[in-house]
């Protein structure tokens, strides 16, 4: 553990709110991103983020530095996410509380280099369909896919975070990709206006999708 991290954790253990804020600022974006991609609901993601930090601060005394603090914190968030869905699935449809359309438009417009509102609308529809498909994946498959595809983590890292074998991560990913592929293909057959890859070439880093 780096010395400065140890120092911050020591201050958190002593109840120093400034140190807590420092840790929160450092980790909130990454944790929230995973939670939002997993839940597809800003409200849920916010709740999970809050709960993650509450639990972390309450049990920081038990953190012994066997893993990195980042790993430890992310594991807490992942567990909350997985259990959250398990609890809620019986209560409400998975599609509830999805990212609100108008909010998304307001949010994405400044960042979307597509000047054409019609294209932006199609883009949003595509995004919604994809997130709906991702949302129907079983929790662990979905988490593995989020961590792999969106967070771009290595199989080995995902196995550490989810406390499952690398072989299981591979199986989860395979099943997730097959499900998504079939879901997208099924929708394309029933909806000719679905935007194709050629229309919206995605950002891809080197070696991302080879």
């Amino acid at each position, binding site marked *: 553990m780096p010395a400065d991290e140890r120092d911050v954790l020591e201050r958190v253990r002593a109840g120093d709110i400034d140190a807590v*804020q420092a840790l929160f600022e450092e980790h909130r974006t990454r944790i929230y991103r995973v939670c939002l991609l997993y839940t597809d609901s800003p409200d849920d993601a916010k709740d999970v983020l809050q709960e993650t930090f509450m639990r972390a601060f309450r049990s920081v005394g038990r953190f012994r530095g066997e893993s990195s603090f980042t790993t430890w914190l992310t594991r807490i968030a992942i567990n909350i996410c997985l259990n959250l869905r398990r609890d809620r699935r019986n209560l409400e449809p998975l599609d509830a509380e999805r990212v609100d359309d108008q909010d998304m438009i307001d949010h994405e417009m400044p960042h979307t280099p597509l000047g054409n509102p019609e294209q932006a609308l199609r883009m949003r529809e595509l995004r919604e369909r994809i997130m709906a498909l991702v949302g129907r994946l079983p929790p662990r498959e979905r988490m593995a896919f989020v961590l792999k595809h969106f967070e771009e983590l290595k199989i080995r890292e995902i196995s550490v975070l989810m406390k499952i074998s690398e072989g299981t991560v591979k199986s989860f990913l395979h099943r997730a990709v097959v499900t998504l592929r079939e879901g997208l293909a099924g929708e394309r057959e029933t909806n000719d206006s679905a935007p194709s890859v050629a229309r919206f070439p995605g950002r891809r880093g080197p070696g991302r999708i080879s």
Partner: protein
Amino acid sequence: MSEETRNTRCQELGEDLVLHLYDELSEAERTALDSHLAVCNDCREELRSSRDALQTIDGARINQMATFRLPSWDDLEDELAYSLAPLPLAATPRRFGGMSTMAKAASILLLAGGAFIAGLQWNSIAAAIVQTASTSRMAQPPHPLDGTGAAPLPAVASAGDRMRAFAEQTHGYFQRSRLVLLEFANSDQISDGTMSAASRNLLRETASARRVAGQIHDERIQDLVVTLEEILTRIASNDTDAAERARLRSDVEDLLGRLELTAPPERFAQERSRT
């Protein structure tokens, strides 16, 4: 290659197709996959459609929304700061486990009065609080707050600022009270006389705590001060009626919950109880 062999091989390499797309195959695995792809139309087709699907997903730029409504510290500070205020004692409620009953009783009385007892093996967390207490009045604990006016807060103070100001200006009144409440809730061994004496000590600070809370203008803190005063008064009265003691115990637990964690999201309550 026979049809059957090919199908078995396809199944074996199914996961490798996806790993290949994520560039997670070793050199040897990739070579093996390439040689299979060279002779297997089905797998080539599967690879192509999987790649298309992932590119479609990439094309939706979902990462762009990944920080959509990212909460700031200000958004969550209320919950986080309040949950943290009594953190030093929240982590290990049974911190007196290794002490004799007499030592517990002595340290509770001293803590409640704002004094410091040397030689106890506090962990670093508890030490911070005891240190706070020690700065109040070593020899004469009675009213650590008397004569100290509240330091001015910034015009727009956050919940954390207010909590900090309250803790500083009351020398950890909540934290020390919480210790007494915890022992009350947890222990059947300490005599009622000890608990009520500790509560009476704390009650001597109540007026000052109320004044500080009033100056800080925080309804939640004010409400906690009032509730705490009522609970301490009931503990101090040492009522032996069984029904009242049961109610008191339940109220103490409620208050401990509020001091530890104010209003956790309801949906997590069930899960929390499992962990």
